[in-house]
């Protein structure tokens, strides 16, 4: 692979991202309307977010606080003086015909985020983090619900005015895979901070990408295209991979890439040119006269910095250094906050860290994937897993039984101790009781006994299996092994 992650084409891929995140406040950015998702259209609106004449906005401090916290987590400078601007343009999803956004004085500037992929670790510069308001939602009627070919559209302003944080990166990303890794890490940081639920499917985290190619070794940037409509991590990687391939072909044919906006079609896995009437962007920004500027006291910033929660990178290092996990397990367990919290609760409850890690990343993750649940929504809690590990550790149940108990508790939410009692799944460690079964099995399988005596060690596995079968997996396997050897 070349440095650019672009095969052997001789071109280096240059990607910059622009990410929009809806902040998890209960009320909107400039009015008191609620921000709940999925309500009936136009039931969470008021004169301010409908842009009715005379209505005046007042900024939601919590949204500003969340933006400052996000900036701190991304190592940004926090502005001492910041203000809102009007960005003027016409589009039906915006009632006022301007969006309240930020221009030359954003809340955060000049940060970075280190991203690891299989190939490399890379520092991606954060140009700025600013705050603006989200727009309404359009539903297109006719033309299969697409904007092109629709007869008319319907506007729902419930989303209008929800605080929207925009994060802009430097063009430092070098492959679609790195873009995915950046988004995954950013998401995990924002989830740790608790500033957004970061759902790409529900649109609370959205991402546009600027992508260009240049001959490897060049320092000047090539012509870029802007790729939109990537609604999942998978879509992001596919859309960018397609765009790399498309631009490579254009350049190899000796043609030039056209600067344009391209729309990702997830069904066809391609990007297509968004041929809208192209007006030159002329937003005529000017300071929002309805909102006063903001002075951010240094003491407040220092206080917030001191109260930032542990971020995924720090947690991962602690899992490795203090708890003794391997790098890979530590990475997986610290990647999302709920998974890390689950693990820590098990360890705090007395579970062996390595056993807990194995069960969470193994059996539990497998069940979560199969049922499409998130760890915080499933019936198994840290208390369940800790108790299961204790039963296993004490020898009350065998490893095999433990999996059956897990299955049951995942389905019913019953505690493992209850399941074991109800179903009589306790491990048999009584040598007389196991001895009786062993005797019966040996008597019934003279051929296997002869083979074992003749030195065929494999035969013991068969005999142990028979004992386990007759005891429904409850016999202590080590004792079964020992007792068979003792008898012969």
């Amino acid at each position, binding site marked *: 692979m070349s440095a650019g992650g672009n095969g052997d084409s001789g071109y280096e891929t240059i990607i910059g991202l622009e990410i929009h995140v809806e902040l998890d406040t*209960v009320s909107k950015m400039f009015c008191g309307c609620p921000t709940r998702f999925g309500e009936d*259209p136009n039931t969470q609106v008021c004169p301010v977010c409908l842009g009715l004449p005379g209505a005046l906005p007042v900024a939601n401090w919590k949204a500003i606080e969340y933006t400052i916290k996000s900036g701190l987590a991304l190592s940004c400078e926090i502005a001492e003086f910041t203000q809102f601007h009007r960005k003027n343009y016409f589009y039906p999803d915006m009632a006022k015909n301007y969006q309240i956004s930020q221009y030359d004085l954003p809340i955060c500037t000049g940060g970075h985020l280190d991203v690891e992929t299989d190939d490399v670790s890379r520092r991606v510069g954060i140009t700025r983090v600013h705050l603006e308001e989200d727009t309404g939602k359009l539903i297109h009627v006719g033309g299969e619900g697409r904007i092109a070919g629709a007869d008319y*559209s319907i*506007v729902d302003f419930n989303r209008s005015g929800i605080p929207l944080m925009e994060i802009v990166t430097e063009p430092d990303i070098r492959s679609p895979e790195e873009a995915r890794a950046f988004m995954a890490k950013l998401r995990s940081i924002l989830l740790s901070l608790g500033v957004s639920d970061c759902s790409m499917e529900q649109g609370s985290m959205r991402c546009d990408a600027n992508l260009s190619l240049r001959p490897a070794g060049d320092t000047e940037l090539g012509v870029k295209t802007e790729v939109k409509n990537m609604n999942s991590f998978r879509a992001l990687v596919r859309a960018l991979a397609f765009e790399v391939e498309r631009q490579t072909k254009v350049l190899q044919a000796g043609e030039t890439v056209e600067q344009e906006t391209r729309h990702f079609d997830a069904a066809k896995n391609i990007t297509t040119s968004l041929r*809208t009437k192209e007006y030159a962007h002329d937003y005529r920004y000017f300071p929002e006269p309805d909102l006063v500027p*903001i002075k951010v006291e240094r003491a407040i910033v220092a206080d917030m910095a001191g109260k930032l929660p542990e971020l995924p990178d720090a947690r991962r290092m602690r899992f490795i250094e203090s708890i003794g996990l391997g790098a890979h397990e530590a990475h997986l367990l610290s990647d999302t906050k709920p998974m890390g919290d689950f693990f820590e609760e098990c360890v705090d409850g007395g579970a062996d860290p390595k056993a807990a890690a194995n069960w969470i990343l193994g059996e539990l993750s497998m069940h979560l994937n199969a049922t499409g649940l998130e760890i915080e929504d499933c019936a198994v809690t840290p208390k369940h897993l800790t108790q299961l590990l204790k039963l296993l550790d004490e020898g009350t149940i065998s490893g095999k039984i433990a999996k059956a108990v897990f299955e049951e508790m995942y389905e019913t939410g019953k505690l493992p101790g209850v399941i074991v009692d109800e179903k009589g799944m306790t491990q048999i460690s009584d040598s007389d009781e196991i001895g009786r079964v062993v005797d019966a099995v040996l008597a019934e399988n003279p051929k296997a006994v002869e083979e074992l005596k003749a030195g065929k060690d494999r035969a013991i596995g068969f005999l142990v299996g028979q004992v386990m079968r007759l005891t429904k997996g409850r016999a202590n396997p080590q004792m079964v092994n020992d007792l068979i050897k003792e008898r012969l």
Partner: protein
Amino acid sequence: MKHVALLARLELSDEELDYFGGQLAQILEHIDKISAVDTSNVEPTAHAVEVTNVFREDETTPSLSQDEALSNAPKAESGGFVVPKIV
């Protein structure tokens, strides 16, 4: 002048273009006059009033009902504002 009219979505006749073009030229001339003043020792003004940090707490207040929200809409459908086709 045509560009400014397009940005404001105004359809202007040739006479109107002339008329407003003259006015705009006067405004620009006036701004040139203001720009000529030496402001090197003056703090930039961010806002007409010298107030900063006016915020609200993150608390919800009652919204309009759907009927109220749509009451001024020339056309409504399925609880939404109907707008003409976009592209």
